[in-house]
């Protein structure tokens, strides 16, 4: 038996989303209160009952979320945040104690990964073995809220209100990563990768060892840019370009090719809006006007690391 798993935290998040939805439904100052309440309410259902509902039903619920967002039925935050003097007064009162709950998040993550995930009494384990880092960080969030409430003596509704306000700041972009992952899955089911790998293999003169390396690294980066996820690109490009050309035709080292190939895919992740959780959600969280600002800040590093990877792979893969 496992006491803490992702499913537990999906229910916690679902309850929170439901609270936000209810608050919105009752908020007369919110001009789009019903559309907003419906959006967060439906999302709450997919969180709490996602495993129980038939996939086709969840699919249509997800489609409903998209239509609500696309027809502009979601309102922005109406509750104003605390004024600067209020915040400064609180900061003066709490001094550095305010950091304690914030630092409990990484501290719990460390403790969870290294210690708590190994605790068990007989067959009863504290943690599910799947996704320990994510479970640890979720536990950290819950611990931190409790500590924050104790420290600030704020009423229990404050974190729900403030969380809801921030959630509305991010808006529908918060579910974009889930949709992009779904799109990646459908691409994989439809066999898009094989077509791309075939194209790359035909476009480049693969008889040259350097070109094989270049095509593999370029394929990893470009397909990751299309999919938003290097993990989805890796099997496709490695089977379609890497193994047949770098390994079989030119006798390259499999481990070196694969390790550096994956990291070349990450360079693609840094520059694509399809990797919404890394590039677009932060832009919303940080309230940036230019939604591509994070990508622009990362582009020079991505290009530099990718070039380094191509050279490193070429210099090492045929040698070891």
């Amino acid at each position, binding site marked *: 038996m496992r006491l803490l798993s992702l499913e537990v935290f999906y229910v916690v998040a679902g309850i929170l989303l439901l609270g936000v939805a209810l608050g919105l439904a009752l908020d007369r100052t919110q001009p789009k209160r019903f559309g907003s309440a419906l959006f967060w309410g439906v999302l709450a259902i997919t969180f709490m009952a996602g495993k129980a509902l*038939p996939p086709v039903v969840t699919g249509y619920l997800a489609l409903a979320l998209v239509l609500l967002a696309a027809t502009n039925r979601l309102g922005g935050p109406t509750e104003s945040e605390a004024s600067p003097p209020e915040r400064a007064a609180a900061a003066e009162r709490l001094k550095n104690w305010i950091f304690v709950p914030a630092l409990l998040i990484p501290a719990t993550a460390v403790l969870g990964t290294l210690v708590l995930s190994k605790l068990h009494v007989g067959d009863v384990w504290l943690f599910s073995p799947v996704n320990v880092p994510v479970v640890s960080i979720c536990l950290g969030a819950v611990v931190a809220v409790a500590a924050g409430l104790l420290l600030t003596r704020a009423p229990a509704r404050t974190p729900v209100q*403030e969380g809801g306000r921030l959630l509305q700041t991010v808006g529908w972009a918060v579910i974009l990563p889930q949709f992009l992952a779904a799109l990646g899955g459908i691409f994989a089911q439809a066999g898009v990768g094989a077509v791309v790998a075939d194209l790359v293999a035909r476009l480049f003169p693969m008889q040259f060892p350097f070109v094989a390396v270049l095509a593999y690294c370029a394929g990893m980066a470009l397909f990751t840019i299309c999919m938003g996820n290097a993990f989805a690109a890796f099997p496709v490009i490695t089977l379609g370009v890497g193994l047949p050309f770098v390994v079989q035709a030119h006798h390259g080292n499999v481990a070196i090719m694969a390790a550096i190939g994956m990291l070349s895919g990450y360079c693609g992740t840094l520059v694509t809006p399809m990797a919404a959780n890394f590039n677009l959600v932060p832009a919303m969280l940080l309230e940036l006007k230019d939604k591509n600002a*994070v990508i622009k800040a990362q582009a020079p590093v991505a290009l530099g690391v990718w070039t380094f990877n191509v050279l490193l792979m070429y210099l090492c893969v045929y040698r070891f």
Partner: protein
Amino acid sequence: MIKLVGIAIVALGFGLRINTLLVVVAAGIATGLAAGMSFNEIMAAFGTYFVENRYLTLTVVLMLPVVGLLERHGLRERAETLIRRSRAATAGRVLVVYTAVRQISIALGINIGGQAAMTRPLVAPMAEGAAHARAGSLPAKTTETIRAHAAAAENVGNFFGEDTVFAVGAVLLIQGTLHAEGHEVSLWLLSWWGIPTAFAAFGLWLWRARALDRRIKREVAAGEEPHA
């Protein structure tokens, strides 16, 4: 070739700035139809993947209440105050230190945060605070640039630490994929070959962080010139 219709729709949709969710769903439906799936099959596939990938949204949603609560009580202001006491701190240096911490901890298999838990409430305000202490008031576009680099510091540290010392997600996926094709490689070897890139990425980030500090100086100086 018809299967690439999804990629074309995504490119076109981003180009025309149509609602991204709508573009993504349209691309999925078009690709599914091109591959001969029925509409209900496509919806079922969307449903399955949507549920499987809830964890991507989970960490953001769960983190926002505590971030909101602490920000209401002056967390960001305090982070700025604290960093201003350090004379050596610049925005770039703050971000370099954070990236190093992130790279090392993720290499040990520990995820200490993410964009919602660390970047918004702590890292971005500290970087802004450091720049503010050095240069005085910052033009709006400079603040934007600093914040964007704070998000980048988190991503660069996260991506290029993961595949090194300890075998986690990505390395296991590589091993599994190669195993299915009849190639046996050790996790240690895969991790080992992730290390050079980790150092290269950190070196490049150091260069970007210095460029950021120079850019802040330049933009603040330009902002202070009297407007004719």
